[in-house]
């Protein structure tokens, strides 16, 4: 038995060893490209500072892009979906029970009781 066997999915196969070899090769290429760059940059010089049209750079806290600023386009595009789904998650226990009873009714029908 090979140490790292090929995973048989019934339709295809997946060998982690081959993937790892490919990953190492890709990392090697990345390292080679990186090593061709400048080894050092001027420190303390004006060119090392961020340039914001002559304005002072904001503090570290302010430059970090917060989680809410990410994927707004995705949620905006699916606004119609979110406007319906988010309110369902009301946090109200009786709402949860209603959904539960609704699914129970559905399963009773699907199971062939009615």
């Amino acid at each position, binding site marked *: 038995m090979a140490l790292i066997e090929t995973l048989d999915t*019934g339709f295809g196969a*997946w060998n982690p060893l081959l993937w790892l070899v490919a990953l190492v090769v890709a990392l090697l290429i990345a390292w080679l490209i990186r090593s061709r760059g400048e080894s050092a940059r001027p420190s303390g010089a004006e060119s090392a500072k961020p340039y914001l049209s002559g304005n002072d750079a904001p503090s570290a806290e302010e430059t970090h892009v917060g989680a809410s600023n990410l994927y707004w386009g995705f949620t905006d595009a699916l606004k119609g979906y979110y406007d319906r789904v988010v309110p369902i998650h009301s946090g109200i226990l009786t709402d949860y029970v209603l959904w539960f009873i609704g699914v129970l009714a559905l399963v009773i029908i699907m199971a062939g009781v009615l």
Partner: protein
Amino acid sequence: MIWEFWSANAPALLLAIPMLGAFATPLIGRMGKTPRNLWILLITALTFVTSAVLAVEVYTTGPVIYTFGAAASSAALVSDSGGIPVRIIFNVDAMSAFMALFASFVGMVAAVFSFPSGKMESGRDGYFALLLLLLVGILGMVCTGDLFNFFVFLEINSLAGAALVAYRIDKGVAVEAALKYAFLSTLAGLLVLYAVALLYGQYDSLNIAVIAERMQFGFLDKVALALLLTGLAMKAGAVPMHFWTPDTYSMAPSAITAFLVVASQASLYGVFRVAFTLYGLTLNYVTIGWFIIILGVLSMFVGVSMAIPQKDVKRLMAYHAVSQTGYMLLGVGVGLAVLGDPVMLESFGLTAMEGGIFHIVNHAMYKGLLFLTAGAIFYQTGTRNLNKLGGLGHSMKWTMLFFVIGALAIAGIPPFNGFASKLMIYESVFAFNPLLSIIAMVVSILTLASFVKVFHAIFMGPRQERYAEVKEVPVPMLAAMGILALLTVLMGIFPQQIVDLVISPAAGALVDQGSYIASVMGGL
């Protein structure tokens, strides 16, 4: 001598050890923090070793029957029982052994992570006692062959879980989350109890194998099926009965959240056991199979889409837990839908089931890991708000590494374990219905996108002034995360060995209703 006793009584010891441990914890806790922690470590380690002993026996010799109170515990039909299995019987087949093995492992890791995580908190003895009782509930649910016994362990699971969710109180918010969990769990438990009563009235037995053998699938059996499936699917967190999961998972201490994932999977096990073993081919398996598939697809999509806009890291991860449960439901649901067609079952149904079952353990590892990393971040920063976090990659490098491993695994990126099980699900489900497989892949992409956001929000960016004092978490917490991270990697690199060793036998045990019945009623 001791080894023989241990091996012969492993199913009973599997529960007796953590139960004894739970009740003795408050006493040992009076001796101090270190003896108590050592005691908890000993108990959880012994429980894990016992489950491993049991698993080895099951995987080498077949299902293990343990009859409580009988002179010969290995015989279900003892001489004084009149030919019927009247006593409580544990029927540990490959599926049960698989569940018990990883549940006890995650329980041990959750305990280790908890050692330093609550140093400023009181009531730690009760916390650990409840953690052990939660472990008892889970192990009992997956090992028992008795329906009423299953209900009892479901209740232990629910009550211990709810009490642990309320542990932090947190201005009443955690208590509210626990109350919701307790209420819904009680409701589910009552439905299960009512279903058990219906089946007992029908078949004069509480034993799963006996009821399965006599199953007529009449009117009351159908009502019982609906009650069991709905109650257990709700406890497993399937959409649209998942609403409690973000509330509960986000408010519980992180180690408990990681373990609650396993507690939910015990209910998922219940869904599978009811469908495949209790009812088997007598039920309208195509309809019920599709019902489980639809629950799975809804869980996958609603879970991930609700995760994306979340700002609380644990709430976000809780929605992902719902989403990942969908994969398991999808894989095993496909297996159920083709249960009556041997050609399709052989062609792709079993692989889909194996993928779903493999995903259960993978999910326990990487989701447990992710919740622990969230706990580590909360431990050091005191916040779960993604908008307030940032730049922690400078000071919490190990936590960041473990988070990346967990995030890539949940997104199904090779070579981590999530990829292996998802690949099995994608390819086999594609043969059943290509659309379902495509949805599953899209959900994985959205999962990756969501975790890129979390990674950026927590770890990227310049070092922040307000977190200048933040440093890496204590060693026990790192060790707990490291163990899960290591397993997440190893299970991705050696997937076929794991499938051959534990997953295929577990799927086979689910499908083979006849063997389950025969192991109790004789005729093997």
